[in-house]
């Protein structure tokens, strides 16, 4: 690695230093824009006792769900879970700690964590189970709760394109939590579909500047679809 070149050549190198008990922030919404190969590498390494911060927890055989069978996840911080049978089983048996967090609060926790803001007030969750044990304060007659931000030992991110310096471009709704996760990792690892040379990306079109990125790897992606919904094709040939 030289200068600002963030490219690594193996997944082993990409996730080097991840050890038992660490906190990992993962981008993705459902199965859209998830760092699927970095998750597979965590499975291969069999790192245990992890705290995962991600909007969802994948399905039984794809995404973060693949870390469940070997009990690699100790705790998950997510807004919506339970699309997988093994998750449900572990949660119901108390084997897996689940901290349900409102989606916008989760996104802001990552954003704030990456931006050096330790906590923030939000009206979201006031008067609900989410507010339990949290400081409450009134501003201009409205009630807010204090939410701590999140920083991960690792952040794992999926982007569309990058240059070798780690400047990132995301594609469509595969962006979701990824740019936020990228800012909030002590070590941020990004996998992409294409790596170009510095200067090949228009600086005005970069979504995440390379300063947030530590390691970059090119891969291929299955991109599994969770809910395949279609309309009839009007232009179908006879």
């Amino acid at each position, binding site marked *: 690695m030289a200068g600002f070149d963030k490219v690594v050549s193996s997944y082993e190198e990409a996730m080097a230093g991840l050890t038992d008990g660490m906190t990992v922030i993962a981008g993705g919404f*459902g199965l859209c824009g998830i760092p699927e190969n970095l998750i597979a590498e965590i499975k291969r390494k069999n790192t245990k006792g992890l705290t995962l911060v991600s909007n969802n927890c994948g399905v039984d055989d794809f995404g973060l769900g693949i870390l469940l069978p070997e009990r690699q996840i100790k705790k998950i911080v997510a807004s919506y879970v339970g699309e997988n049978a093994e998750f449900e089983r572990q949660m119901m048996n108390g084997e897996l700690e689940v901290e349900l967090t409102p989606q*916008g609060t989760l996104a802001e926790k990552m*954003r704030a964590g990456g931006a050096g803001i330790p906590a923030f007030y*939000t009206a979201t969750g006031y008067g609900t189970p989410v507010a339990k044990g949290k400081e409450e304060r009134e501003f201009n007659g409205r009630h807010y709760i204090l939410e701590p931000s999140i920083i991960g030992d690792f952040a794992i991110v999926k982007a569309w394109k990058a240059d070798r310096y780690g400047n990132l471009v995301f594609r*469509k*709704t595969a962006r979701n939590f990824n740019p936020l996760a990228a800012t909030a990792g002590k070590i941020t690892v990004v996998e992409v579909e294409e790596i170009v040379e510095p200067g090949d990306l228009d600086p005005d079109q970069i979504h995440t500047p390379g300063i947030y990125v530590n390691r970059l790897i090119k891969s291929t992606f299955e991109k599994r*679809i969770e809910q*395949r919904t279609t309309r009839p094709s009007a232009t179908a040939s006879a």
Partner: protein
Amino acid sequence: MALSREQIAQRVAQELKDGYYVNLGIGIPTLVANYVPADIEVMLQSENGLLGMGQFPTEEEIDADLINAGKQTVTMATGASIFDSAESFAMIRGGHVDLTVLGAFEVDVNGNIASYMIPGKLIKGMGGAMDLVAGADNIIVTMTHASKHGVSKLLTNCSLPLTGKGCIKKVLTDLAFIEIKNGKFYLIERAPGVTVEEIIKLTEGELVIPADVPEMQL
């Protein structure tokens, strides 16, 4: 006759105004998109990071990188924009979305809503619902008026853990259109063929009945 899911969506669609940015929740709210009046333009916000959600794709158009908040494959409408999840909830929490439509298990006379958790059952999570109810001023809740066993969902006090406190002002059920103010339900309209008596019977919280309760026009 109680309204069908489609008819609830149809009545909600009458509340849409030209130029509205709208967030539609999963279930009945999603159906509202099918009844946008032809003479107005609305833009649908999907909280996973899309403003200007289009219709479902054709088989050829399917793109794994383009889904809605229900994780369904979608397309983008002309003039759409894409953003990250923090930006998406800045729009929602910051009160920039003109109308939010979402489902619920229970609503009470103080505008409290319970919609995400039944203790003892599998808890999947609140997703974006807590942010939506905390951030939006104009919210319509859609739900059935009572359970299959005739237990009212319009209560004096929500019995389930709350999604939001004091944030709901309008509820459209399969029987009635109800507004919430001053700690009471107000009956605004009734579903075609449904009597005021039937609605009273299935409303547990205090219900104010005006002299005239018109039938909904669908």
